[in-house]
């Protein structure tokens, strides 16, 4: 009788000890907010963001979770659609911060949505790794203490691209830009116009309401200006494909390129054969042998559709965030931010080592500088014409 009681006590003790060990080792959930345009013209980029970040999370979880100090975390993405609008970005940020209680956000992508989310994230001191070409995303009175931009903008790649074009096509004299009439077009078009003018180009530009699908009348105005180069500048993937198709169907014979984006695969999918000769800024070459495992993982999870070139960028950004947490030894936002600022040289993804710049242009070193490509569509395939590294300033 006595021995049975002892045995029962020992069993209980063992059971509780085992439960305690299991509890101590079970990864703690770590919510990471994702704000991405998952509807409308920027959907391809939104999916790139969501999927790139998710693949990084999957890689971490495959190794047993995110080990920070003596704790193990299970990162979990909480995704909100920002619809590529300022209102969408703001609402998503408010929901993530006040309802989901996240302290770290990946995205958004477009200037309107980033500018919409920024006042909310700055006030709540939430760390955001975003994109958006608008200068005030980084250059603002507060010096963007908690916002980092993880893609080159037209400020970084624009001058180098225009210089390359000038050297390769010296006979071109006049350039046209048709951009959306929102914070993207209103900032990118004038900024790129100055870059073109500095290289001796005459510039014609026009803005349209985002959501338009019929560009033929504007393209007709453009053709009447006898331009040599049509720059798609700050347009989203679906608009890029339609503009190429409609420009060629309207008889435009000049060069078409996008010093922005990138959305080359989407352009080929929508414009088909009419995308032949189209040139663009691009951020990643999926034929690079380094990308093989990434492509395999993507295919296994998301099927055979287009892999937008931004996907590795967001995969990289998510790994940068995780590495900053590891180095800071916790999830305190200020400590992670300080660690992220010192991440130069870290290589966690597929787009090369981290290099922060932007002090000269934005007053803060929160602009990630990474190698970029100038590509051209030839026989329906993407061919690299040049590889350029932005100058650190």
């Amino acid at each position, binding site marked *: 009788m006595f021995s049975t009681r002892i045995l029962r006590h020992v069993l209980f003790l063992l059971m509780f000890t085992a439960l305690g060990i299991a509890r101590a080792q079970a990864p703690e959930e770590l919510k990471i907010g994702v704000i991405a345009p998952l509807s*409308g013209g920027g959907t391809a980029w939104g999916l790139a963001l969501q999927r790139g970040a998710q693949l990084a999370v999957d890689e971490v979880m495959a190794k047993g979770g995110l080990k920070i100090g003596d704790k193990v975390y299970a990162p979990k993405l909480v995704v909100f659609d920002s619809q590529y609008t300022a209102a969408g970005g703001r609402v998503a940020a408010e929901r993530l911060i006040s309802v989901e209680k996240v302290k770290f956000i990946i995205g958004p992508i477009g200037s309107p949505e980033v500018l919409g989310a920024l006042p909310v994230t700055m006030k709540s001191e939430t760390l955001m790794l975003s994109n958006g070409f608008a200068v005030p995303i980084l250059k603002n009175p507060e010096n963007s203490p908690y916002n980092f931009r993880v893609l080159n903008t037209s400020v970084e790649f624009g001058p180098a691209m225009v210089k390359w074009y000038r050297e390769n096509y010296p006979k071109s004299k006049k350039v046209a830009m048709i951009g959306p009439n929102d914070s993207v077009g209103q900032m990118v078009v004038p900024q790129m116009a100055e870059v073109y003018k500095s290289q001796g180009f005459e510039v014609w530009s026009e803005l349209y309401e985002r959501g338009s*699908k019929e560009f033929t009348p504007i393209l007709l105005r453009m053709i009447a200006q006898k331009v040599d180069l049509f720059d798609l500048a700050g347009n989203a993937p679906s608009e890029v494909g339609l503009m190429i198709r409609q420009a060629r169907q309207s008889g435009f014979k000049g060069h078409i390129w996008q010093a922005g984006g990138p959305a080359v695969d989407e352009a080929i999918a929508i414009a088909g054969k009419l995308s032949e000769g189209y040139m663009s800024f691009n951020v990643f070459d999926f034929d690079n042998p380094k990308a093989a495992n990434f492509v395999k993982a993507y295919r296994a999870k998301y099927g055979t559709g287009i892999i937008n070139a931004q996907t590795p960028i967001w995969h990289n950004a998510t790994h940068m965030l995780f590495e900053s947490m590891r180095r800071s030894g916790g999830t305190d936002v200020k400590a992670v931010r300080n660690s992220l600022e010192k991440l130069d040289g870290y290589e966690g993804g597929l787009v090369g080592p981290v290099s922060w710049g932007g002090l000269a242009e934005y007053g803060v070193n929160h602009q990630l500088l990474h190698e970029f490509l100038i590509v051209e569509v030839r026989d329906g395939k993407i061919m690299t014409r040049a590889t350029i590294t932005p100058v650190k300033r």
Partner: protein
Amino acid sequence: MFSMAMFGQALVNGVSLSAIYVLIALGFTLLFGIMRVVNFAHGAFAMLGGYALFFAYGQYQLPYAVAIIGSALLVASAGLIFEYFVVRWFYHKMFQSMIGLMGLNMAMVFTGVIVWDAHERSIPAAASEVLFVGDLVIPADRVVVLAVAIVVLFLFWMFISKTKYGLAMRAASQDVEIAGTQGINARRIYQVAFFIAIFMTALAGSLYTQVYALSPFVGERILMVAFVVVILGGMGSIPGAALGGILLGLSESFLSTFFGAAVSTFVTFGAVILLLVVRPWGILGEPE
């Protein structure tokens, strides 16, 4: 900048744009005219038409005529299921129909996202050539749209004005109770009208997505265009939809070409607001 060549090109662009707009608006105005239903799921049915054509013509490579008619028939047939379970409860309940069908629209769109992904796709053009007539440049796919719009308008006019079902539809749209006393089965007439409306909407959606691009969200723009066209022409008026589509297409083309996109948007929506103030029932509509 003005030249006769540009004027001619703006006219060609305007006519092709008008054809698309007329097709988009027909199904929308028909449902309102007969059942007093504001079909906020109009864009979603158009989207289904696009996906049906994508698979029938783009993937399974059926002959174009078979693919485009078959796609619209398929969507219209599937539409009858929605009619039975959802739409019929909102007949002659204008405001309730707006909210109810907005919900149906969201359900259809996001089911589309789950099934087909949110990526934009391209449907191969039925004719990809570009025709040159003097100084004019005419994409052949726009000619196809124009031809389909003319044929559909003609057949629809024949149906409404020359057949017994057409007569019954007109009677039911004027007074459903009196039509009932004349032996007209209103339920059957509503089903036929719904089938035809969704057939035309799916057809318009197929052509629209073939000319532009296809995604589950394509219907947002289609719904907006349908609304503007029927407000211009008059809610429920078939000739009004044709006139509204032509006015919108031509004004957008000429204003955008000669004055720019901003002026075009400002003038077009300004005209719609003005019309709502002075003649809220539209150009060819009738006051309630």
